[in-house]
């Protein structure tokens, strides 16, 4: 059957599947956009009134909401991607056996993995673009480089989606998903989301600097504020290397999990 030749674009059928599902369940995406907006209003604007400008930054004129907004966007990009490849994929892997059915077709584990990562990116783009538009409307962006936030969020999404793929192959039960939260929440709170790195003692700074979310936040913040480009380049390198390594490991592990 000539129509069944092996096209590399086969991974896109995973995206088509998810699009069909989201035709019915699109309000889920709204929740993902509202969450960072809530944090921004509560912490950024609310606490920002008490804080004023952020001490300890090179540029002392940065207001607290402008400091927090890019961090929340990076976090939203991370969460969206991780949720897709951990929780949602684990359901399909363990309970629903969706992938077992998919792998009886010419689809490979690699196509499944790439398809799910692509889908996570697509969602991430929608969420980060909407968030960017929202914060621009309330006047928090001041420079054209803020537009670079969208490709930055894409890179963050790709890295965390790939990390999530590795994690999902390690999960033994639903209880294990709690462990993901145990890592994600402290990372969210301490990766310079709400205060600059300089507030920590040196050893803690090193620890924070090792976290992927820290680099994600620095990248988005550089685009958002238009400063700190040297750091942004380091962050890009960090995220690309980590993401590719994770993807390689994930595809191998996924293949071993699915083809016994």
């Amino acid at each position: 059957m000539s129509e069944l030749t092996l096209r590399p674009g086969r991974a896109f059928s995973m995206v088509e599947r998810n699009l069909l599902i989201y035709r019915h369940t699109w309000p889920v995406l709204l929740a993902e956009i509202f969450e960072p907006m809530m944090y921004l209003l509560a912490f950024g604007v609310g606490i920002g009134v008490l804080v004023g400008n952020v001490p300890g930054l090179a540029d002392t004129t940065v207001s607290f909401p402008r400091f927090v907004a890019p961090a929340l966007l990076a976090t939203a990009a991370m969460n969206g991607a991780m949720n897709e490849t951990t929780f949602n994929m684990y359901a399909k892997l363990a309970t629903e056996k969706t992938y077992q059915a998919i792998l009886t077709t010419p689809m490979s584990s690699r196509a499944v993995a790439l398809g799910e990562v692509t889908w996570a990116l697509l969602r991430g783009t929608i969420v980060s673009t909407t968030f960017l538009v929202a914060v621009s409307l309330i006047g928090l962006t001041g420079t054209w480089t803020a537009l670079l936030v969208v490709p930055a969020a894409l890179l963050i999404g790709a890295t965390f989606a790939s990390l999530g793929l590795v994690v999902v192959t390690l999960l033994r039960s639903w209880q294990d998903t709690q462990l993901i939260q145990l890592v994600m929440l402290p990372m969210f709170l301490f990766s310079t989301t709400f205060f600059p790195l300089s507030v920590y003692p040196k050893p803690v700074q090193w620890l924070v600097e090792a976290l992927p979310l820290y680099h994600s936040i620095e990248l988005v913040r550089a685009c958002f504020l238009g400063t700190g480009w040297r750091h942004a380049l380091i962050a890009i390198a960090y995220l690309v290397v980590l993401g590719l390594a994770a993807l390689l490991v994930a595809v191998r592990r996924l293949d071993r999990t699915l083809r016994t």
Partner: protein
Amino acid sequence: MTTAPLIEARDLTKTYVTSEPYTAVKGIDFEVRPGEAFGVLGANGAGKSSTMRMIACVSPVTSGTLRILGMDAARDGERIRARLGVVPQDDTLDTELTVRENLLIYGRYFGIPWKALRERCDQLLAFSRLEDKGSQAVSTLSGGMRRRLTIARALINQPEILLLDEPTTGLDPQARHLLWERLFQLKEDGVTLLLTTHYMDEAEQLCDRLVVMDAGKIVAEGSPADLIERHSTREVLELRFAAHERQLMIDKCAGVTERVEVLPDRLVLYTGDGESTLAAVHALGVRPAGAFVRRSTLEDVFLTLTGRSLVE
């Protein structure tokens, strides 16, 4: 038949590498020819599903060779899968999609264009008698309907070989007959069927040829009639006894026929002529609580070959 086999297994072996390595399939040989319905009969744990998963190219072959449609299962998995239809034992329908969407998206995994898919979807929904269920959630379907949808899904790529792993397990008699009727239809259309089952009536109804598997090995091969002729007698006399005199009666029956099987609930005597054996038993002073003469079935073949009954 001289046509080249569609599936050819030589010394096919499957070992699962876990903390306790387990060999589920122990070096089996068989061939499946174009257009036939080929059955793999065996009790649970005989290695049927492992064999099917290797043929479906979802489970790697441990050793031996497996050629499907002239290709090597180890190397050409993707190309082989493009021409197979798979009906797995577990229900693997996509519960997040509707009935119709299940068929559409599955077709997309094969790379079939949307336009062609929509037409094929209508045909398959009609074929599986689910025309008016298209927009419903999969969870609203009955067990029989879900099975028919799974078969329809497996047919989306117009496969040359359809693999069915215990297609009617868990279905009520009416749903089974409807499913068998659909499978007959497919066979008429020239689709090669390969199915596993632990129901002897299913094997007798559907299969041109079958192998009997036990503990990872093939213990017999042939058409249902062949197997019955080779491994059993023409007729069978089944006797049941009251509990208190059961052992006494069983002892009395010893030697009445060449082969006698003692099962937990009954005594089975293999004979060319059931009625005359029953007369002989009566002449010995045996008073059965129930006596029943029937023709031999695959169940008897299985009992002869493995010493166990199929469904335990």
